[in-house]
């Protein structure tokens, strides 16, 4: 059953208000397919029923589930590979040198989805920089979706998920099989602080300062004003000599010119000197 245009507009506005995500007209099918299952689990007949409930009460678990369902969570281990190579070859060696006095490092995965991105970074760091075990490494991973955070925290992956981008030697070293799922080791799960965080929050109290921020494949869903606000907030929590990674389809160019892209890896940005 197709969604009524009134209901579509309501959902689009709601998602924009809650998560800053823009759902363009023409994406009716997306709302329909993603909210259909939410309606069923909530014991409502259809998407119209979900909308009716939310019009009456714009809060609570149903709202959370609708926001969860409307976010795109697609991710994979070592996604795009090059950013992780750049971290290994350039960024972390650079920070090891700069921070050798305080021996501390602060990392934030700002849209961590079900965890593949932070776990990939952590495995790479364990493999290539064992000396970091003697450092104070703060590793924060956040997402707006509680469901994704729960899965990330659990660290249990399907065969299809470990088949994507994860080198077999790392599978063998950091996972064990639990039934038909692949479970990542507790020592990796515990090394990450998982928290709910909405990037479209006007201000970011208590965040940072960070040496490395991964903000990949999430800004594509936002409008220009939201991107600007996020990049401005990011300037305040990123150390002046820190590193910001965006997705391959994302850029600060024509959005916020206080960042400069790294010549060696264009998806890596540094704050320009003030």
């Amino acid at each position, binding site marked *: 059953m197709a969604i009524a245009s009134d209901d579509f507009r309501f959902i689009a506005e709601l998602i924009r208000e809650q998560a800053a995500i823009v759902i363009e007209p023409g994406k009716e099918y997306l709302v329909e397919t993603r909210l259909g299952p939410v309606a069923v689990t909530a014991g409502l007949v259809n998407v119209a029923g979900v909308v009716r409930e939310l019009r009456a009460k714009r809060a609570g678990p149903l709202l959370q589930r609708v926001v969860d369902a409307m976010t795109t969570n697609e991710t*994979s281990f*070592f996604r795009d*590979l090059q950013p992780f190579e750049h971290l290994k070859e350039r960024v972390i060696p650079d920070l090891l040198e700069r921070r050798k006095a305080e021996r501390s490092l602060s990392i934030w995965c700002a849209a961590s989805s079900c965890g593949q991105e932070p776990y990939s970074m952590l495995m790479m760091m364990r493999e290539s920089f064992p000396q970091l075990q003697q450092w104070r490494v703060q590793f924060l991973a956040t997402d707006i979706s509680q469901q994704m955070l729960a899965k990330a925290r659990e660290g249990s992956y399907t*065969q299809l998920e*470990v*088949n*994507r*981008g994860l*080198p*077999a*030697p790392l*599978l*063998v070293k950091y*996972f*064990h*099989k639990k039934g038909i799922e692949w479970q990542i080791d507790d020592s990796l799960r515990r090394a990450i602080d998982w928290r709910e965080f909405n990037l479209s929050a006007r201000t970011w109290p208590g965040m940072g300062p960070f040496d490395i921020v991964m903000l990949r494949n999430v800004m594509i869903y936002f409008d220009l004003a939201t991107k600007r606000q996020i990049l401005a907030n990011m300037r305040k929590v990123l150390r002046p000599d820190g590193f910001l990674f965006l997705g391959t389809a994302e850029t600060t160019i024509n959005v916020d010119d206080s960042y400069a892209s790294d010549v060696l890896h264009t998806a890596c940005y540094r704050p320009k000197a003030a």
Partner: protein
Amino acid sequence: MRALVVDDSAVIRTVLTRILTNLGFEVIQASHGKDALDKLKGVPLPDIALVDWNMPEMNGYEFIRSVRESAEYRDMPLMMVTTETEMEQVVKALAAGANEYLMKPFTPEMVQEKLQILGISGS
């Protein structure tokens, strides 16, 4: 770039060949380990071999071991592509000399990502 596909299923050989051809590889097919060793004779060493585990005549595990023991073929990168999905088998394949391990079923992206991990790109 050249790839060797070793699988007793003609369907899988066709699927992998299509994926690899789209990535710019020239593909040699073999239906089991012995057949693969025959087909390697007198041709330039492939840049990657994708090898099934369970096959008649010589299975993938035996093939990997004999490749690693041979003087001519030992440097060929090897990727196991198999329905075997237990940890012991992954460990065993890597210990025998496989560089990567892909579990069936797979998608073209998965094949591409694994090749990227090995630093191998087509064309």
